[in-house]
């Protein structure tokens, strides 16, 4: 299988795995490609060539046990997890292929985006403790409008005269685009302000090359316990 064939298989598996899940309230899981995976698509319409697969989910839309179980069923097992010490829900889930029948199946990082006062927080193993509940939590932040604009903004774009608008942008502000071929079966979904996010995480992104682990974020929040986030 060449790289494109592998990428097509991976896209299909991610879509089918994530789309079969629902939120605790029964609504559809709100997920999107983020970080390097988003960058690859936005800059080059590529997928999985230079990065592992990064997926973002809105924290309030995740049934984590379901999510973990679904990925186990699709040949991936959790390698590292950071959990919220308020409720043991994962903030970051690092999955690795486990006897996968697809050669070179990538690792998958799922990031929970936690809403707080006009911004979203996310974390990964930046504290390097390797524990599920580290002694301090370091979150990076991103303005909330980049991921989830207000409903009026979404409605206005969806309602504009172009017939494609309401098909491409869903009610949660997530864009649904084709990859590899127009109107084919392969889909990606990326967050609302993907250009702004590329500027934020990968300055100069269109005119230089980025590699895995090079995302930039100067805005951080550090807490000893996630309980401090609720204050």
């Amino acid at each position, binding site marked *: 299988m060449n790289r494109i064939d592998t990428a097509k298989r991976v896209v299909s598996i991610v879509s089918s795995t994530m789309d079969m899940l629902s939120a605790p309230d029964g609504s559809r899981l709100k997920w999107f490609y983020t970080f390097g995976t988003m960058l690859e698509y*936005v800059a080059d319409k590529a997928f999985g060539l230079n990065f592992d697969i990064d997926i973002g989910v809105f924290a309030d839309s995740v049934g984590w046990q379901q999510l973990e179980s679904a990925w186990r069923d699709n040949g991936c097992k959790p390698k590292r997890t950071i959990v919220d010490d308020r409720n043991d829900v994962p903030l970051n889930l690092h999955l690795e292929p486990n006897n996968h029948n697809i050669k070179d199946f990538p690792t998958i990082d799922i990031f929970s985006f936690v809403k707080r006062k006009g911004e979203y927080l996310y974390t990964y193993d930046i504290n390097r403790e390797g524990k599920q509940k580290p002694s301090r939590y370091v979150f990076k932040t991103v303005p909330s409008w980049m991921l989830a604009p207000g409903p009026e*903004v979404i409605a206005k774009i969806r309602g504009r*005269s172009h017939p494609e608008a309401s098909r*491409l942008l869903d009610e949660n502000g997530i864009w649904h685009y084709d990859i590899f071929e127009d109107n084919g079966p392969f889909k990606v979904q990326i967050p609302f*302000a*993907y250009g702004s996010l*590329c*500027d934020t995480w990968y300055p*100069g992104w269109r005119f230089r090359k980025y590699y895995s682990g090079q995302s930039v974020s100067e805005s951080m929040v550090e807490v000893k316990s996630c309980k401090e986030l609720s204050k």
Partner: protein
Amino acid sequence: MSFDRQKKQDALQDLAIIMDCADRVGIRKHVYVGFGLLLGIVRDRDFIGHDDDVDMCVQADKITAAQELRYFKELASEGMFFARRKFSTRRSGDGWGGDIVSLVRAYNRAKGQDHEFDEGEEGAAKKRFTWFSLRRRSDHNKFCHWFMIPWNGYYWHTKSGKWVTHRKFDPSMIAYDQYHDDAIMKGVPQEYVEELIEIDFRGVKLNIPKNYGHCLDFWYPGWLIPMKGGSSAKTVLCRVPTWEDETKWKVRDGR
């Protein structure tokens, strides 16, 4: 007329000339590509096929009236002529506006294209450009120049009065009385276009906003998928009853 191969070659040549003119009067670092061509450069590294003009922006607050006039003279000396222009009294200055009007009129007369200006020459004496459109006689490309004016946290651009009619705006965004002729400005957050970077576009050095992704999200939401037609989003608007009295300017931010 869309960008076919010949038109692209001409446009690249014209872009190089425009940037050279800006260079010669010391404003190169304040002239940048915006709107549709920015979209083409970032998305396709090319002109947009169905586009019919090129949008250049000038950081109006960072150049002097004298530089503005010299810029025009340089453009004229390269065979560029003004297809259309608009002035505002917003930035009343040092009298160069009158000279520009006289110069444009003389130039157009020489080309047999004399026609009346929107404002009388006396009134125009205090005025500076808000917008003009350039063409070169040797080809058919149109180059809009938007003089971006910073105010109240945004950079604004406009063609002054009669740029747009009330029909083009969502009435919930901005109240527009069809009997009024107030100018409408479109705004972009100042931090999106404050800082510029130089890039190489098919062998021509051009400036673009450093935050080009922000600009495209703001001007063309969902810009990755080509959609024919439509101007930049009318997300932030300002109604200007009189240029002289900023207290009467009304901003609507639809974000």
